[in-house]
Every structure is written in structure tokens, then in C-alpha cells.
């Protein structure tokens, strides 16, 4: 049963990653791209989880935690930066 599950999830996650990459490429604004790359990181994390579940090990757990931290810090930083850069022309 596990090879079947692995195939299904691989196809589904590849489609999802493709969708996120299309949004990164097309995204009209920087924030759209940040959001989409956050989703791409989450898809990567999902792939790591499935690898751990199917092969029964925990080696990826720290990688998973650091991926979510990178996503968090990245999107917060970019959101801050965008807010700051756009505010100045408004005020002047």
C-alpha cells in the first residue's frame, strides 16, 4: 500500500508545487510572491513529512522546523520592508 500512497502524494505535491511556482512567476506584486513562496516551503515540508512517515525515521524533523522558521522570518521581514518603502512617498 505504501508505494501507492507515495505515488499519489508525489503527484499531488508536484501539482501543488507547480501551482505555487506559477503564482511566484506571475504574481502581480511582491507580497503575492512572498505568499506563494511560503506555500512552496510548506509543500517542501509536507514532502519531508511523507518521507519520514513512509521510511519511518525522524532525520528530517529539524529540517522541517528550520524550513518553517525560514518561511516565517522571510515573510515577516519582506512584509515589514514593503510597508516601510511604500509609506515614505505617501507622507512626502
Amino acid at each position, binding site marked *: *500500500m505504501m508505494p501507492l500512497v507515495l505515488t499519489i502524494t508525489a503527484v499531488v505535491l508536484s501539482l501543488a508545487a507547480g501551482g505555487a511556482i506559477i503564482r511566484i512567476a506571475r504574481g502581480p506584486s511582491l507580497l503575492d510572491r512572498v*505568499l506563494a513562496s511560503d506555500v512552496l516551503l510548506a509543500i517542501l515540508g509536507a514532502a519531508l513529512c511523507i518521507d519520514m512517515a513512509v521510511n519511518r525515521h525522524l532525520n528530517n524533523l529539524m529540517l522541517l*522546523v528550520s524550513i518553517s522558521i525560514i518561511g516565517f522570518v522571510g515573510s515577516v521581514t519582506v512584509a515589514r520592508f514593503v510597508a516601510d518603502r511604500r509609506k515614505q512617498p505617501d507622507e512626502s
Partner: protein
Amino acid sequence: MNPDQMSVDAVIDAVSAVFMVVGALMSLGAAIGLLRFPDLMSRMHAATKPQVLGLFLLLCAVGLQLRTWWVWPVLVVAWIFQLLTVPVSAHMVGRAGYRTKHLHPELLSADELEAVVQQAAGEHGFTDDK
């Protein structure tokens, strides 16, 4: 191995298989939402909510497959970290998006923040809307 044990194993395997497939589908749902929703705010919904459930289901699958009790605390901690960080980053992105006018007013049925922002911009002071 006696047959009883076998069937329990099979059930756990089946449950975790279902969890994995549904968890992967959640990622696909997030991607579909990203592609199909019209503006940044509604894409934000698509980016945050399925992620949380997807990671929950996949971590459950990992816990079920490893079949040892000591992995559950670290999985729970990983999920709680995600619960704490996802709303914060969604809020930051949403706030930046609102402030930089990434909204399509024709897609909003009401905007109760706009009046407050206008008032604050006019007065440059403390505002109390209610």
C-alpha cells in the same frame, strides 16, 4: 506474529495512508487557491489555513508510523510552533497588503477599516471609532 496484531498494524497503516493523502491534497488546495483567488487578501486565506491542517495530518501520520510514544511531544511542539507563527506572518503580509492598497474595492462588500484610516490620516491623532 498473531493475526490480531497484524490487523491492528493494517488499520494504523491505512489511517496514516489516508492522513498522508489528505495532507497532500491540502497543499494542492492551497496552490489552487493561490491560482484562482482574485486578490492578495483572499489568497492569504488559501495560503494559511490548509497549511496548518496539512501539517497536522502529516505529523499524525509520522507519529502513527513510528509507533513510539516519545515522538509525539516533539511532533506536538512542531505543530504548536506552526500554530503560533502562521497567523503572525499572515497578519504581517495582510497588513502590508492593506497599507500598500493591494485591495480591489469592487471585491469587498464592506470596508470598515477605510473610514478609520481616513479619519486618522485627517486628524493625525487619536481616533475612537466606537
